[in-house]
């Protein structure tokens, strides 16, 4: 059926919707994207804190009195990946620091098989500090700057750090 409209308005709504629909779609995608980004952001904080806590509860006394709960760099990386469920483990740089130095897992998933004891035996004592820090690349939430993984500043690096004392 052919429709005729007064004043030549035929198709105006379609054109307007097309012009405004594009920014509206980008904005909708951006809201979803920033929500995911922020979830990843605070999950990074949680995973870092939980991992540091995990390490401090598996310290010196794990080697005493025939206990066998000492942990390795691989255990720590695996725990972090489990706690950071919102994060892509291939994009997290995880650093574990004790008195003997820093072990860097870049990315975190590359260390899951590492059998080096952590904290290091020479530094594994109640009251000593361990530090867990992690950095993660967030995708730019403003969809108009996509595609992702392009050169900076399209992506943002965020991080979290937790220093705790070995408790047991």
């Amino acid at each position, binding site marked *: 059926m052919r*429709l005729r*409209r*007064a*004043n030549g*308005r035929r198709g*105006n*709504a379609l054109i*307007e*919707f097309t012009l*405004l629909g594009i920014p*509206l779609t980008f*904005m*909708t995608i*951006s*809201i979803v994207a*920033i*929500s995911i*980004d*922020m*979830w990843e*952001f*605070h999950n*990074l*904080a*949680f995973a870092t*804190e939980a991992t540091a806590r995990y390490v401090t509860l598996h310290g010196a006394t794990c080697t005493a009195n025939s206990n066998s709960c000492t942990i390795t760099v691989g255990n720590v990386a695996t725990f972090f990946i489990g706690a950071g469920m919102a994060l892509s483990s291939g994009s997290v740089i995880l650093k574990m620091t004790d008195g003997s130095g820093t072990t860097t897992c870049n990315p975190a998933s590359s260390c899951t098989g590492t059998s080096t004891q952590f904290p290091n035996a020479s530094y594994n004592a109640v*009251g000593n500090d361990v*530090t867990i*820090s992690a950095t993660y690349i967030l995708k730019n*939430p403003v969809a108009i700057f996509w595609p992702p993984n392009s050169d900076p500043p399209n992506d943002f690096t*965020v*991080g*979290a*750090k*937790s*220093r*705790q*004392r070995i*408790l047991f």
Partner: protein
Amino acid sequence: MTDSRIPRRHVGRRSGSNVIEFSLLIPWYIFLFVGAYDYGFFAYSLIASQTAASVGATYCSSSSSTLTDATTACSYALDQFRYLPNVGSGLSTCGTGTTVTTSAPVAVTASSVTGPDGNTATAVTVVYLTPQLIPIPGILPGTLTINRTVKMRQRS
């Protein structure tokens, strides 16, 4: 399609109605975007504050001589906030008492108290002032002051 029930004087005035609708919708989209952004920082700050209080209390509860050692508890607390823009790697001191300012956004107090079981314990309070974010008038403040307290029994 033109509705024959619409008075003729209204015909031709609907052009641009999508623009008006879009304009009415835009603030809500912006608020949603800003709200998600603010929420992310607030959630991160809450987790860091809770951890700071917990780690500070863990240290202070380690012996009778550390029960009120707010200075060392402060250094532990600051290390939970290092990746927040208003703390960074350079800040090494906390605010006085529970007073926080933009230049000293973290304050830590530690006191000796009697725990719920009647034994000596420490109570560590961490107050943190979040960085200035984007406010939504009447709904979300631009900054948030977070106050967390952890009590922990003295271990030895």
